[in-house]
């Protein structure tokens, strides 16, 4: 498994703009000025196009436990960034950080995930990189 540093370098080479581009819809439904961290257990991994989804039963700090949906970019882009379908598995205890839905629905756009062993996987966007390098403590 590549280290976080190696993954970050690879992501930087791909270019930050790649995470902002979209094929069939934008990410306007998410508030990308905000980040919410949700702790819980993974219930479903959908390694699919046009976007990858991971669902978990979890809660933000002080919040109630609900089913949260985390939307990634496409399977195509994630594959090229060396993400794999088994990086996060059903039953894993995880800590997801997302840009939340504007309308309050329990879900958001993937920023980063902290695995039970402390390892992080991060998106390529600038905010995700900042989070993973400075804000994850």
């Amino acid at each position, binding site marked *: 498994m590549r280290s976080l540093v190696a993954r970050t370098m690879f992501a930087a080479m791909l*270019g930050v*703009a*790649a995470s*902002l*581009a*979209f*094929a*069939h*819809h*934008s990410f*306007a*439904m998410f*508030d990308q000025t905000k980040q919410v961290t949700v702790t819980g257990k993974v219930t479903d991994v*959908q390694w*699919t*196009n*046009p*976007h990858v*989804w991971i*669902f978990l039963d979890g809660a933000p700090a002080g919040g109630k436990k609900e*089913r949260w*949906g985390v*939307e990634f970019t*496409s*399977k*195509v882009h994630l*594959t*090229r960034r060396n993400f794999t379908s088994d990086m996060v598995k059903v039953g894993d205890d995880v800590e997801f950080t997302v840009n939340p*839905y*504007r*309308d309050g*629905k329990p*879900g958001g756009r993937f920023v980063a995930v902290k695995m039970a062993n402390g390892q992080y996987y991060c998106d390529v966007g600038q905010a995700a990189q900042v989070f993973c390098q400075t804000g994850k403590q």
Partner: protein
Amino acid sequence: MRTRYLALAAVIATACTGALMAAQSGPPRPIYPANAEKASYAELDKLPDWRGIWQPNIGRVGGDQPMLIGQYKKRYDEERAKVAANPGYEIPEKSNNCEPPGMPGMMTMPYSLEFVFAPGKIIVIQEAEMMVRHIFTDGRPLPNEDEIDPNYFGYSVGRWEGDTLVVDTIGTREGQRLGEAGITNSDKLKINERIYLDKDNKNLLHVDFTFTDPEVLAQPWHRNHTFRRDRTWEILEYVCSENDRHPIDAEGQTKAVF
């Protein structure tokens, strides 16, 4: 007796089918090129090497600004105002709900392109939504506009000017994205593309567009895109309808389907 009726029915059926076929057959279509049966794959060796997968340089677009007119300018201004007023607003586009964007949008999506050369034809594969475009390079003329039923990808004819592929496209259906969200084409759109390798960097591909549309633009609009080559990648599968959980309605509101 029964056999006689059956035979008569068969004769009538045959006559009707024949009439139907006659009504559906048109004038003979020309074969391009005339010597198609002798088309040589060896001729392809004379063409520049565009093999590999071409990844777009997203956000780096050259060219000039569109001089929009009429209802198209009005709509663009209105849509931009809605986005400015509501960052959650999504400009409604035909491609929002996994419908292929067609031309010219398919050439500039944030996914990779592959060019496949064949005698008399170049096939462009767009990874996103698994789109395929056909460019005829067999010497056929561009059809008249009224000979084409407007469609997603239009009708493309190309020719080589040295190592530059020059492609003219007409016949795209109206209402597809033209250049950026909020701008759409009419069915009078003409697309000219000049596609060539950078003279100093053979791993950089230029696609220079000129859009001409008398109902949308006061003057031709130029958009220049570049792509970088990766010889190790393969085009990956992308079925948009596999798991689209964000359908967008006609008012630009995104629904989340969990």
